[in-house]
């Protein structure tokens, strides 16, 4: 597992054996980029769509000189360009989400409305997975909140860099906060801080990356919803296995050892039992909450 720690303004890249070919995989098109974890102090942003940190490293290293004397439009362009490799991995999944959504009865208008207003891929995959007609509103909204709870940590990590910006700019910008825009924007800010550039956070760079993600996500989920009916019933082809595949790879990216993963096992067992014995989709809430309770109890032991 590879991780980059952003500590005291410096960037360390750890490559713990195994993935020695990681550099060769920079161009690999992965669902949400490749799976790495970002550790900022004690905070970990993970889940949802993830980002290749090698891409962040290589892109921000390559474009750092431009950051120093770049004007506003070149800052925006720098953000868009740094996001392009991430898009390569995101687009297939946007199409799959769109196709899946039409199987669950969402229209080609409703789905882009969801991805455009909500704009948080992990929660949208979960919502579509749980979607019924009519939808179980409380359950889906609660799961959306839980899946996206990592945004709290991400926003908190970003907050120290936003001090120089007026709130009328911060609040709209935070609408576009996703794993990719956050990771790119924060890594860039850390690097500019290390290079002595003030202010360290470049809002136009961040918005370039964020808007590129946004347009691609909404556009290609809509395209998937339009093309979905042509694909027929996705279950027949095994497309539904994309969800366990995506989630398992995301979880590998969050892996921090057996001890830290014990709450996941609790969640899995409880969710599976509730699924088998209690009708409805409550297994998700039951599994998630029991896992969080386990994490809380375990943290008390340590």
């Amino acid at each position, binding site marked *: 597992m590879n991780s980059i720690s952003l500590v005291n303004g410096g960037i360390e890249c750890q490559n713990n054996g195994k993935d020695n070919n990681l550099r060769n995989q920079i161009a690999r098109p992965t669902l949400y980029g490749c799976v790495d974890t970002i550790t900022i102090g004690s905070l970990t942003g993970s889940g949802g769509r993830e980002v290749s940190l090698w891409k962040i490293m290589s892109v921000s290293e390559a474009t750092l000189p431009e950051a120093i004397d770049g004007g506003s439009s070149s800052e925006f362009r720098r953000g868009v360009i740094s996001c392009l490799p991430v898009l390569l991995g995101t687009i297939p999944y946007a199409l799959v989400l769109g196709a899946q959504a039409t199987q669950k009865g969402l229209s080609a208008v409703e789905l882009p409305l969801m991805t455009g207003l*909500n704009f948080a891929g992990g929660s949208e995959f979960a919502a579509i997975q749980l979607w019924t007609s009519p939808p179980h509103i409380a359950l889906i909204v609660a799961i959306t909140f839980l899946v996206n709870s990592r945004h709290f940590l991400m926003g*908190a990590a970003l907050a120290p860099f936003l001090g120089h910006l007026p709130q009328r700019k911060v609040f709209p910008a935070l609408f576009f906060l996703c794993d990719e825009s956050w990771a790119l924007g924060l890594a860039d800010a850390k690097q500019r801080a290390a290079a002595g550039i003030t202010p360290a956070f470049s809002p136009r760079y961040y918005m370039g990356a964020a808007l590129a993600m946004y347009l691609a996500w909404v556009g290609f989920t809509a395209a998937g919803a339009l093309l979905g009916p042509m694909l027929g019933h996705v279950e027949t082809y*095994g497309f539904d296995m994309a969800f*366990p595949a995506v989630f398992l790879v995301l979880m590998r990216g969050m892996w921090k050892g057996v001890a830290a*993963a014990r709450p996941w096992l609790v969640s899995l067992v*409880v969710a599976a039992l509730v699924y088998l014995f209690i009708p409805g989709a409550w297994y998700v809430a039951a599994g998630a909450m029991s896992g969080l309770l386990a994490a809380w109890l375990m943290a008390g032991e340590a």
Partner: protein
Amino acid sequence: MATLLTIVLMAGVTYLTRIGGYVVLRNRVLSARATAVMEAAPGCVLISVIAPAFVSKNPADLLALAITFVAAMRLSMLPTVLIGVASAGLLRHLIG
């Protein structure tokens, strides 16, 4: 109507999580315990969502999940998903 309401509420709670960290947490330090819970949360949610796949009654699905699991531990996102989808499609055709 229920669909629209669900979407708007989803968007609302998601936006709250996005601004929440900035508004509430920027001047505070999370306790170790709260941090541990926050770090475990995404994984707990994700595994709960896919838990039914682990107790499927279709042997083809279980075998495909096992193959997908092994792939997920070793490969990146795109190959894992391709292997998962292909193995599920093939095994359902052959066994299921």
